[in-house]
């Protein structure tokens, strides 16, 4: 027992010693790669960013690696997507990190979904409807016009966490937003041929993207969110859409590919894997190439 206490005290002493140089760079933990990419645009080299999820992981089912606790323990900022997307893995990590800054309600806890208008907010919530999010559809980042609001929130949070860098963050944000404005206009134009096209998707994932491009989602391979496709449901989809023209099936990189492939074959339509995040597919390296890739893969 004495040994235990001595260990504890010496470990505590080491931590205090380590804490001093750690102040130099703002330590930021983000849940998804797209957030890291945005932080990179705004913070440049002023911040030290750790990302919990990998781009090709199912964002709902990120394995809560215990090593994340150590990263959260040191974080000045925790930036999450929000709208319950991280509900399965972030809360227990926060509880064990013993870091008041990043507790919900703390100054360093940032929920990006608060800055965006979410769609598909259910009137009633019941798990009989599958994995639904009471706050609305959480995949808002797939509309490029939601990015500026999110970028502003990030710049604001960075400025609060590191007041000395506020000027630099504002400058970088302005530069980013200017580039984004040009790009958005280009994407808007590029997306025009997609307007009105009917598509299937695997999960309720690309709804914001579909709204932005004007594509109509006429079916999901999942019978209900989070429930894997059944042959009966797929059969019903085929029957219901036998008379109409479905343009293509879009899916993500982490779900099984057999169902989309099978349905696509039966309907003689293409199916594509779209990135739902930065680094979900190799071509989506950053925020800009994410939307480039999304559009390139669905355009005729």
């Amino acid at each position, binding site marked *: 027992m004495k040994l235990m206490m001595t260990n504890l005290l010496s470990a505590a002493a080491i931590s205090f010693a380590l804490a001093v140089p750690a102040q130099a760079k703002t330590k930021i933990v983000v849940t998804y790669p797209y957030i890291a990419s945005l932080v990179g645009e705004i913070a440049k080299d002023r911040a030290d960013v750790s990302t919990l999820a990998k781009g090709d992981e199912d964002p709902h089912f990120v394995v809560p690696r215990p090593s994340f606790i150590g990263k959260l323990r040191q974080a000045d900022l925790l930036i999450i997507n929000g709208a319950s997307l991280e*509900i399965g893995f972030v809360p227990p990590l926060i509880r064990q990190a013993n870091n008041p800054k990043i507790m919900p309600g703390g100054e360093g806890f940032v929920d990006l979904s608060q800055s965006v208008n979410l769609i598909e907010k259910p009137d009633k919530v019941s798990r009989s409807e599958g994995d639904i999010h009471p706050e609305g559809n959480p995949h808002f980042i797939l509309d490029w016009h*939601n990015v500026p609001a999110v970028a502003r929130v990030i710049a604001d949070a960075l400025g609060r966490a590191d007041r000395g860098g506020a000027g630099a963050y504002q400058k970088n944000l302005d530069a980013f937003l200017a580039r984004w404005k040009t790009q958005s206009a280009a994407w808007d134009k590029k997306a025009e041929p997609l307007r009105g096209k009917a598509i299937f998707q695997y999960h309720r994932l690309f709804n914001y993207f579909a709204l932005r491009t004007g594509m109509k989602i006429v079916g999901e391979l999942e019978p209900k969110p989070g429930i894997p496709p059944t042959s009966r449901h797929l059969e019903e989809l085929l029957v219901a859409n036998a008379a109409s023209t479905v343009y293509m099936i879009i899916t993500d990189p982490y779900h099984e590919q057999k169902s989309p492939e099978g349905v696509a074959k039966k309907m003689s339509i293409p199916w594509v894997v779209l990135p739902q995040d930065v680094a979900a597919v190799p071509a989506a390296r950053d925020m800009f190439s994410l939307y480039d890739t999304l559009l390139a893969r669905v355009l005729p």
Partner: protein
Amino acid sequence: MIHIALSTVLLLAQPPESTVPAPSGTDNPTLPILPITPIATSPAVAPETQPAPSQDDLLRRIEALEKAAEERAPPLATASTAGAFIQNRFNPDLSLITDFALVGTSLNDKSAQTLAVPGLIEQSDRGGKLRGFSFNYLELAFNAAVDPYFDFFSVLTFTPSGFDIEETYVDTRQLPFGFQLRIGKFLSAFGRLNGMHQHVWDFYDQPLVYEVFMGAEGWKNPGARVSWTAPVDFLLQVNFEVFQGVNDESPIYNATSYDLTAENGTNLSSKAPFVPALYVGSLKTSFDFGDNVFLLGASVMYGHSTRTRSEGLPTDMAFSAPGTILYDGELTYKYLLSSYRSITWQNEYLGLLSSGDLALASDGLVHAADKKQGGFYSQLIWRFDEPGRWRVGARFDLLDQNSFTVDGVAQPLDNMLQRYSTMLEFSPTEFSRFRLQYAYDRSRFLEGARKDVHELLLEVNIAVGPHGAHSF
């Protein structure tokens, strides 16, 4: 009417409450920043770039908006004042978890009552393992932030044998330097499994080492914990706990006195131990190499062990050992195959060192007794299908050390007590789970003779309420 309906809809379409400034809208002059929402499902502003709608279209839209507004808008009077003192949004998160099983076993229920693990358990608790249908528990879990300084957790359990406050405690939210304080009644952080609730166990039952040393439901007691998380890029966590140490359900630790009348009329008794009597220290660390995740830990429990058998028979006895040590070493390795699939290999060794007084009713004397017992489990779990709904696993339990000496004389006790378990699990969602388990148990004794037990169990576990977190 149209005007009122539309303005209500526009009000409803306002952005949600936000702690950040609303987007200014300067980024795109032609498209609104807020996402476009189809009219039929939810009210929102129509995009400006769509082709000019026909008059019919517009009429249909107005109708749809009116209908949506009627369906959604609460009557103004009730919306303004009736809810003034309603506080249900402050209600704690409440989850209900229940567990049932269908049990088949080679052991008849009568024999089950007197099943023992020699030197460790005189009468196995066979709750949940009697033939036929078994209702195991209904658990109510509450949690909420108390205020900016504390979080509150509570787990109440109803079982066929009664009601138990399994845990009820507060955690601090604001302590600096990586410290956290917990006060209340709670499960110790000892070992890998003790802090885990039953519904997240990988098998129907606890490993044998937990059953014989920690009790079937783990060590829980009133006390306090200080935990410290190190500021490093991997996990390094230290916990120090102090518990009252008085616990009738624990197979080892119970800081009480004994009072025995021997056959020859001598009174054998001990003084009440000083309380709080139980101390636990544990250290955990975890690090990753790519998709290989390692979790290691060491724990020590130190406290007063008292065990008595007092039935007015010559076999009555009392064992009292003030400085009893239980130690634990754990190693978990997890290989992440994909977002859903993984292989987990988990191992834990528990050992007991206990020296004290053995008072025997048969001779009326107090003898020096020494216990050295220990064992381990090793289990492999494979989550093997793509959406991650199926798991298969195997566990090997072994008690390899079982030594008990009285006045230096070793007592004849069996060691190498084993159990083999396998399970197959299907979880349609994270909220429901079916598990089939088969166990071949070679650790039980019936009236002094080894009694091999076969068990086949089908377990159903159901959880409703807020989303639980995935366990690592």
